[in-house]
């Protein structure tokens, strides 16, 4: 893993460890309702300061925390048009299947490519440390997968072009 990436991920991991202290908190406005406060943002006293971690201009991570929920939004590097469409396709594919992931948000926050929403219920069902490790691993896997896809598409194109031109010879 390159040094800048490792530092970036370490920073995100430390921030998540500090931010993922969630507890059950019923809604203050509606009786018998329990809503993730980070999504509603109606009570400022329940929200923590959002933290923005930038690796560079193209890659950043926004961590918004509240008393009973945590939202993590990621912006992934897209160097050229091909990476752009591969990233969009892949992250949209995952977002549309958010129910399989449970902690994934179906629609990313504006300005970002993918978002997670972790509530106190998720922290009760899952181990906090492993959940943080999963998010870090997710970020690494996404970057690796998009690079591999790009290389695969270019390699396939090259092979197909070679076969096409060989037919003339």
């Amino acid at each position, binding site marked *: 893993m390159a040094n800048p990436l490792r530092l970036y991920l370490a920073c995100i991991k430390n921030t998540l460890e500090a931010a993922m202290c969630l507890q059950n908190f019923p809604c203050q406005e509606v009786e018998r309702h329990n809503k993730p406060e980070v999504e509603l943002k109606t009570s400022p006293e329940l929200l923590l300061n959002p933290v923005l971690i930038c690796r560079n201009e193209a890659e950043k991570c926004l961590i918004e925390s509240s008393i009973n929920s945590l939202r993590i939004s990621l912006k992934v590097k897209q160097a050229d048009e091909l990476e752009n469409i591969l990233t969009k396709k892949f992250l949209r594919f995952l977002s549309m299947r958010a129910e399989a*992931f449970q*902690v994934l948000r179906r629609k990313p926050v504006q300005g970002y490519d993918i978002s997670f929403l972790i509530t106190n219920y998720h922290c009760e069902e899952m181990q906090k440390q492993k959940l943080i490790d999963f998010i870090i691993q997710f970020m690494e896997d996404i970057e690796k997968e998009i690079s591999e896809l790009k290389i695969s598409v270019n390699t*396939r*194109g090259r092979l197909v072009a070679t076969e096409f031109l*060989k037919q*003339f010879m």
Partner: protein
Amino acid sequence: MQCSVLDSNFVYVSTSTLLETQGTEMLKDISSHTYEVIKNIAVGVIDIVHPPRLGFQLTLKLHLDNIPRGKEAIKTINKISEIQALILSNQLKEMLKRFNFQDDSQAMNNNNRPIRIVYHPSEPFYVFRQPEKITAVFPMNFKDNSDVVIAMSFFQELVEVGSQKEMEKAPQCSWSPVPPFQLRGEPVQDLTTNAGFVSFDITSRHVQGKRLDKTVWNLLNFYAYVKYHIKCSRGYIQRRMRKRMDSLVKQLNNTRLVEEAPQKEDGRCKYVKELVKVPKGKSMMQQRCKDMTRRVRISKFRIKINGCARFRFNQRWIYLPRFSSKSSNKSYTKMD
């Protein structure tokens, strides 16, 4: 296609492959060799009608009764459907053969006007003569933006591979975002593209002997080739994404606090359930049913003798509904 109630055993099929140059249609006559090939496609089934119907190059009379049955019928019908492609490919072959690659004076005259060839509707390509070569230009258009990007990366690879030393015998390939100046005056809708223009330079080497058939086939099917490559690339991307998603879901499921308990703890066999594949509600119901059954059976037998467990469990004291995934096993009653 024409058919008549009075003459129901016959169908008349008319076709034409118009080549255009500067908006003027060139009705190229079909050569005798092409006529022979068409007649030999299905002897007894196809008759060529002279003269052809007005506005068409060729009219065929098909004897429906003489079409063989079974698998042969499909082969015959496929060959009949390829007649238009056959005519166009023969016309292109003759055009390429007639062009004299050594006579540059023809290229300087007005004889190098581009010829518009339409093999597939809305996908025309142009062929024009240049000194010592013939250039085929393909305006590329795609509906989806992601198709455009995949196609552009393919064209980039095509140009790079074509410029390699090993491929010097293949036609020189180039890509341009703007049409070549030779296509000035052509219809605007043909020259409006979102993926640029791909050009192939055909030399005399590529039209000699058996290579002529391959060259013509490759030129006529270039669009189909590119579209098939894009379709396969998209399918490959989809498979990779699905595989990666499955692995990520498995990783997430490993973070759960409560792990699935093994059914038999005596070490003889281990049972691992994949939560990813089995729906959550169904697996919970099954587990509860098994736990309840086991507790009821254990409570009935206070004296436990090792080795006789199978005799105990074969007796059914209480009937409990079974939840089976097999569709044939539908023995359940609706509870009000």
